């Protein structure tokens, strides 16, 4: 696979700018509920975008916007959904934790541990129909202690399904550090309990991760069975917007943000390699921000859903 470095960089900055646009909706009460952003984890989004085809399925979590963008969900409709507008991907019914895009085989859930089972269903359907697609089920580190991790990996392994379990290990489940609730030092080593080989990769190294993830997906796509890949990273903001985040040391946060920012890391690498310069990269940043701000302005003038439609879509019309 030939990676285009500036493209990788641009994708990450667009994802971050997207999330930053979302942040603006919280203090204004345009977005309700617990908004979870992926700031600091963007390299994972890039890896998804590179390895997957439109037909592959992704089932994501409460922290899902960047996965959606990676899967090709239209940013405008996604942002409008997050801002609870009638023009949103789901007409404002779903909201930021529950975007569904059947055309791109993308969905998410706000319930921890609930993504892998659904991904398993996609994987089963692909195998039943003999299609060369994979289904990616995403879990946080916290989600891997949920029973569905065990149940789904076992089924995927025993039936040899094209399931890729992608673990985003950002080291915390809300306030709880992984070491306090997980009995192994990596999560990927648990793959052995299903006869699988798991792999842990540095999730803030966008090139390394993109290559590793692509190789993993390729193996599964070619009939090599399910895979488990863990990407280490760090959550830059509170668990949700409004989280007091008092459970993490300030000094820890400062240090980790400096060490584990996939964007600034990559910026330094590109400059060192001479593949970009500070100005050019800053221009990319600015462009991404401008794009997302323009989109935000548009979305802000979109209508809220009409209250008279509150009872629409509970049941679908029966095809007779």
């Amino acid at each position, binding site marked *: 696979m030939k990676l285009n470095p500036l493209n990788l960089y641009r994708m990450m900055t667009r994802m971050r700018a997207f999330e930053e646009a979302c942040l603006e909706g919280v203090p204004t009460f345009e977005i309700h509920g617990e908004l979870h952003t992926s700031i600091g984890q963007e390299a994972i989004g890039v890896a998804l975008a590179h390895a997957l085809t439109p037909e592959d399925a992704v089932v994501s979590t409460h922290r899902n916007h960047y996965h959606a963008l990676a899967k090709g969900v239209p940013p405008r409709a996604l942002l409008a959904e997050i801002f609870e507008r009638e023009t949103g991907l789901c007409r404002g019914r779903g909201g930021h934790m529950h975007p569904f895009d059947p055309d791109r*085989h993308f969905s998410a859930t706000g319930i921890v541990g609930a993504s892998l089972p*659904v991904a*398993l269903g996609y994987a089963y*359907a692909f195998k039943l129909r003999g299609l060369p697609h994979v289904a990616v089920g995403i879990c946080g580190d916290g989600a891997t202690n949920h029973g569905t991790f065990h*149940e789904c990996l*076992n089924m995927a392994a025993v039936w040899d399904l094209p399931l890729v379990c992608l673990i985003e290990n950002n080291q915390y489940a809300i306030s709880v550090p992984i070491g306090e609730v997980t009995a192994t030092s990596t999560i990927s080593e648990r793959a052995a309990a299903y006869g699988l080989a798991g792999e842990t990769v540095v999730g803030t190294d966008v090139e390394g991760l993109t290559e590793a993830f692509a190789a993993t997906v390729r193996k599964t796509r070619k009939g090599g069975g399910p895979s488990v890949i863990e990407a280490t990273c760090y959550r830059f903001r509170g668990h949700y917007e409004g989280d007091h985040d008092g459970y993490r040391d300030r000094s820890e946060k400062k240090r980790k943000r400096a060490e584990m920012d996939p964007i600034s890391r990559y910026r330094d690498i590109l400059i060192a390699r001479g593949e970009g310069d500070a100005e050019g990269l800053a221009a990319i940043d600015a462009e991404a921000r401008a794009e997302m701000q323009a989109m935000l302005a548009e979305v802000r003038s979109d209508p809220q859903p009409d209250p008279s439609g509150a009872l629409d879509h509970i*049941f679908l019309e029966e095809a007779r």
Partner: protein
Amino acid sequence: MADVNQSMRRINGSQAIAESLMQEMERDERVVLLGEDVGRSGGVFGTTRDLFDRFGPMRVRDTPIAEMSFTGMGVGMAMAGLRPVVEIMFVDFLGVCLEQIYNAMAKIPYMSGGRVPMPMVIKTAGGNIGSAAQHSQCLWATFAHLPGMHVVAPATVRDHKGLMAAAIRSENPVIFIEHKELLLKKSKDFLSGAEVPEGAFVTPIGKANIVRGGSDLTLVTLSAGVEYSLEAAAEVARDGIDVEIIDLRSIVPLDVETVANSVARTGRLLVVDEDYLSFGLSAEIVVRVLERLGPGALRQIQRHAVPDVPIPAALSLEQAIVPGPASIERTLREMAAAS
């Protein structure tokens, strides 16, 4: 759907289900069945008999005991364009997989703004036949309280077949609750609807069935309650008490119209419900009737359901709390005497 000219036979409830599954799977290759022991063994009640041999393991899948995940797998299958039928062996186990049932299956059509259909059936067995607190129960009201699912419970053998076909063909998620007693009952012992057409047919979901006309009192029930009530009604008929029996067939949608029309004539309503009494079917029916006919429309209201107690193991205790022919008869006589 027309079933005139079709040859009719008497079969039993579990055969009716197996036959319907077979015909729907033949008809539509997107239909996939999964659950514990649905494959090689043909189901603990025989409702999936022969399907494994006919369709093979990819379409008739024996799963590990992992209900949460294989229910969620059904959700993913439906999103990928299949039409899964997921068996949860006993309805009592809903507690291990309710999350995927009510947060995913039932809500995704709405959460997606109507973009994602969810043609999925949860097939499960309920009812009280002496199996104690963790393997009895009906729980239809538990599902019905949570929006987004149709909740079906067949009574006649014929409906076992026709409603299962309707559930599979529906674009919406359906909870299909079989009653163990009806699955095990012999065809010849059914008081109603044991004649079943050979070919595939659909019984629409949402239309109640007046299984016995009557003028004195309206008895509303479903599932095995229908057979129990027919027995009781035959007894009291000898003493001139003429009971109309309505088989709801589904509790979501609830056919209030049929019930209200009957009650408007009789003025007396008895709900017989094998599920728990409180916060359930019986009160909902009473209030929906009153909302339609006015607060003073009923001369008598009676609820006969399991009085909010876990199902005891001993049959002597179970019989004291679960509605059956004798207790229904007693209730009918009391109501007749009181008016």
